């Protein structure tokens, strides 16, 4: 049984081995430390010319990545904490994501920016956020976040080798040590949809017949939903859960059939509630499924405030298992 982290590490090794255009830049990558969350562990020692430990210059670093991608390389830039994405905002928004469109699609910028996000470790307000949210709506920027039902190593490989524009690759810290979930595990049926370049997992806790509720989530919150699936099954609550790995642009053709099937939808995210991913999903669903949905789309998200360091406070700000369960019950 492979973990999320092990899958990423494998993906990185395969990328470096398979394509000498792949470079990895990030802070504290020198082995044996091997990166703050160990995703590149061993890579720097094996490929010292292509795994580069950098100064603490997030904005400059991503800009360098843009320049490298423009000139024929396939760089991966690691931002140590997703909270620091703010420093790289100009490089991502006004350079990386914009150059291809602005130059009338005469250039490619195949840059992958990887970063760990999320709370629940008591790291406090500037090391616990899910700031991929700040990049929602940036045109031509692809945002990807594999759930525990997807293979993150495969997703990363696909991003680095196939992309022609900037990809934000979002990893939730809580997922690194978790085993990936296979079809049939824990009484769940897992189907992968292949409409988009990054797979969407559709998971059911029942066999045959119609679901009661659809739960839509991505990345880190897949762990919480997974924990609830068998409890819901025990309660005879039939849940179809949909986990798109492609967060932006919205994998709407994967989400729509699931929402239409259940007609009652909960969207779960760890970013703050206002103006979030759930708001986009809800708006799109009400636009496309008006008259089919039986209840308004319910959003479970972090409260619209900072994430305090004290664990008890953090738990009350971030979405909880109870919050999800209550929302599901509320729709029935």
């Amino acid at each position, binding site marked *: 049984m492979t973990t999320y982290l092990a899958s990423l590490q494998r993906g990185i090794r395969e990328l470096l081995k398979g394509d000498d255009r792949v*470079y990895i830049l990030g802070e504290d990558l020198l082995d044996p430390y091997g990166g703050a969350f160990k995703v590149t562990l061993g890579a720097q020692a094996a490929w010292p010319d292509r795994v*580069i430990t*950098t*100064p603490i*210059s997030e*904005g*400059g*670093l*991503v*800009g*360098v*990545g*843009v*320049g*490298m*991608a*423009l*000139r*024929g*390389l396939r*760089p991966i830039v690691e931002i140590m904490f997703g909270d620091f994405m703010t420093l790289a905002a*100009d*490089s991502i928004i*006004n*350079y990386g994501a914009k*150059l*291809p*469109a*602005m*130059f*009338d*699609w*005469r*250039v*490619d910028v195949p840059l992958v920016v990887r970063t760990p996000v999320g709370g629940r470790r008591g790291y406090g307000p500037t090391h616990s956020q899910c700031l991929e949210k700040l990049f929602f709506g940036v045109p031509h920027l692809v945002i990807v976040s594999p759930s525990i039902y997807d293979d993150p190593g495969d997703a990363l490989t696909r991003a680095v080798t196939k992309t*022609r*524009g900037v990809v934000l690759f979002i990893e939730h810290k809580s997922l690194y040590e978790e085993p990936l979930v296979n079809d049939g595990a824990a009484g769940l049926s897992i189907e992968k949809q292949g409409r988009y370049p990054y797979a969407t997992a559709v998971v059911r806790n029942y066999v045959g017949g119609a679901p009661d509720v659809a739960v839509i989530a991505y990345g880190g919150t897949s762990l919480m939903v997974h924990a609830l699936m068998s409890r819901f099954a025990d309660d005879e609550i039939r849940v179809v859960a949909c986990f798109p790995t492609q967060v932006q642009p919205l994998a709407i053709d994967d989400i729509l059939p699931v929402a239409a099937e259940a007609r009652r939808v909960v969207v779960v995210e760890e970013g703050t509630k206002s103006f979030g991913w759930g708001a986009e999903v809800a708006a799109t669903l009400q636009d496309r499924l008006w008259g089919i949905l039986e209840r308004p789309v319910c959003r479970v998200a972090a409260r619209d405030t900072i994430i305090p360091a004290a664990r008890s406070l953090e738990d009350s700000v971030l979405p909880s298992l109870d919050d999800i369960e209550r929302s599901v019950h509320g729709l029935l």
Partner: protein
Amino acid sequence: MDGQPLDLLELAGSRKLDLYRQLYTIRRVEESLLALFSQGLLSGTVHTCIGQEACGVGVVNALDRTRDVIWSNHRSHGHFLAYSDDMEGLLAEILGKSTGVCGGIGGSQHLHTGAFYSNGVLGGTIPCAVGSAWAEKLRGTGAIGCVFLGDGAMAEGAVYEGLNMASLWNVPLLFVLEHNGQAQSTPTRYEHVGSFEDRVRSFDIEVETLNADEVMVVLGAATRAVKQVRRRNRPLFLILHTHRLCAHSKGDDHRPEEELQEIRRLHDPVANFRQQLMALDPSAVTASEAALETRLQQAIVAAQAAHPRDSNDFFAGGPR
């Protein structure tokens, strides 16, 4: 620095004329854009480099246009024209036509052709230039990078992140600072302390400072610098003291008229070089000018006549 200073007499006459043509092209295109703007035919604004033409021409002609990478900023027309000689593409681009070099989407501040890139947000171009030059080195192409920036940009943090990384990783990048003493409407003394040279040297990067009123002087310094960057795979920094003879963009120049007139009299690189070449071959000079005027007029007419970029076409755009 390596090598000997370049002498006016060492350069072949045809080569000098070619330099003059580039200077003249830039000057006339910029003046035409200002005229078109006054007639209300341009949307948006233009940042002209009138008075700074020797910087672009001098540096770009020292580079290898077939492979070297150039990053420019919002004031990029001079660099662009020196690199590509595509006045038709530039005019059509600024007039928002589908025949523009970027199909009318980028406009004045966002140009790309070959290995030339420009963007309108200051500071961010430097790390991109570092990455571009570094990629060329890592891929072993022999190409180097060159990034143009203004004195205003020397207050952006990204510049220093870029200088640090360029020096740390031995990136073959030539930094060219066009120091015109003005950042938009604000004189340099309101924005910077210390000296730019000291700042650059603190990153273990060599600096050369010179006056950019004479294109031959700039070309000489740039040729030596480019050679050194390419040979040593190390960054280098040129500070070119130049003068902006017109506004930053329209309407933000509040320097007194007498000051502007004096600057024009003493520091016009196009006029300076013209004077020197007229002494050598006046008919060649006037013939070139006449030919360029014709070409320019045709380019303006063609740009005006071309179709504006179609919106459906724009929305349908994607990686090709």
